């Protein structure tokens, strides 16, 4: 258990560090399908490991040992986890729970508000496109029962018809691919596991890249797609629309430039070896987590046996 219980920590660490580079070496759709489940698995294993650590510490409290009918001393003697580590794990677990609840609550409220707005839009706008009179170039996808693409008049006029096709295809890709669900999963994993704190930003970028690639395929013109991005970006910058509109995730600047360059370059090939490697690492961590659980169970069994052997005198 000594080694096994830390394997999830290692997995989270590796994923947190390498999600970005890995994401750039796979097609974005594949990257999302690999990284998000891996992150969720890592977060679950992380919480499980913390819980095990905390449990071995709590089990040594005399009250708990008395209730559970196991020997405190036997548990303490066999416990491979040092006290301070276990209590640190406890603090981390409590912290993770608090952050997780907060993020989930905020997210649920956000989703609920947008859902109401989307429902209202469904009533007033039976068509997909919603155009708002606004001098600020804006364009975004609003998920809902039908899904809408919201664009400002400034953005409509800033792009030519071909570029608008790219824009609509991009936003539609977000709606069809239910990208907001992928992002939510990544955010929850990042909330539960601090080692994955920067992962949601990476996933967000990959989701944009996925939509870019889909749009480029639909218009069958990668350069046009790159052009649309440049034009939209310049329009946004030059009408002084860079007022802080509030983003939940901290992105490094230059995201749009990276997307433009990625569209100008050829599509990234699927690297099956890389995918297999990631799957292997996740499986190993999960196996280690299960093994740690079994070791902990065994530990308590021994302590219970010692308790019974001593005739029920808890010590």
């Amino acid at each position, binding site marked *: 258990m000594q080694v096994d219980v830390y394997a999830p920590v290692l997995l989270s660490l590796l994923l947190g560090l390498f999600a970005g580079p890995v994401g750039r070496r796979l097609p974005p759709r594949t990257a999302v399908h690999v990284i998000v489940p891996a992150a969720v698995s890592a977060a679950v294993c992380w919480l499980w490991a913390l819980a095990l650590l905390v449990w071995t510490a709590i089990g040594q409290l005399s009250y708990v040992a008395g209730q559970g009918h196991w020997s405190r001393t036997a548990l303490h003697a066999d416990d491979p986890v040092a006290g301070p580590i276990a209590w640190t794990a406890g603090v981390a677990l409590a912290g993770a729970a608090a952050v997780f609840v907060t993020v989930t609550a905020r997210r649920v409220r956000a989703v609920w508000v947008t859902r109401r*707005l989307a429902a209202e839009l469904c009533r007033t706008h039976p068509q997909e496109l919603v155009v708002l009179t606004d001098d600020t170039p804006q364009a975004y996808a609003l998920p809902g029962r039908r899904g809408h693409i919201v664009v400002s008049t400034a953005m409509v*006029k800033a792009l*030519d*018809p071909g570029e608008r096709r790219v824009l609509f295809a991009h936003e539609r890709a977000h709606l069809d691919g239910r990208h907001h669900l992928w992002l939510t999963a990544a955010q929850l994993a990042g909330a539960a596991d601090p080692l994955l704190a920067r992962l949601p930003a990476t996933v967000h970028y990959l989701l944009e890249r996925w939509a870019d690639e889909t749009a480029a395929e639909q218009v069958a013109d990668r350069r046009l797609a790159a052009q649309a991005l440049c034009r939209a970006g310049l329009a946004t*910058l030059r009408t002084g629309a860079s007022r802080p509109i509030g*983003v939940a995730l901290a992105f490094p*600047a*230059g995201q749009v*430039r990276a997307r433009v360059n990625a569209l100008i370059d050829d599509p990234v090939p699927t690297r099956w070896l890389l995918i297999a490697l990631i799957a292997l690492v996740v499986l190993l961590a999960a196996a280690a987590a299960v093994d740690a659980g079994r070791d902990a169970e065994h530990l308590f069994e021994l302590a219970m046996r010692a308790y019974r052997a001593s005739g029920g005198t808890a010590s």
Partner: protein
Amino acid sequence: MGRAQMGRARPVSRQRAAAGTLESEVLAVLWAADAPLTPRGVLQALGRPLAYTTVMTILSRLHDKGAVGRSRSDGVAYAYSPVLDAAGLAAQRMRVLLDRGNDRAAVLSRFVQDLADTDDAALAEALRRLGVHTGADGSAAGRG
């Protein structure tokens, strides 16, 4: 393209999906124009090889949905223009949604965001490399 669209709850048939696409393009053309457009005008502005009847069908469908209004110009054909969001309620709610609270903005997927002033030169340069002539305000020459 098909794979990316699998598993969604929106229009099921491929034809309806394609029709929805064209609808948005036509509507956008009307918004971009400064004056009402006839179907022929829309066809020209779209710059895509489409059938005249297709454009007419889309325009009348948009009219049925209440998204566009029409009037008879001095010609025989109708001239179409987009219906403005009268009370501006949708716009107001959008603005509230975006300005208040980071997480709400995170539910939306913006086309471009987090641009820095340093991106300006890089994006303009990229446009030049793509072979597109740009005006002083970044607009293309001769757009529809």
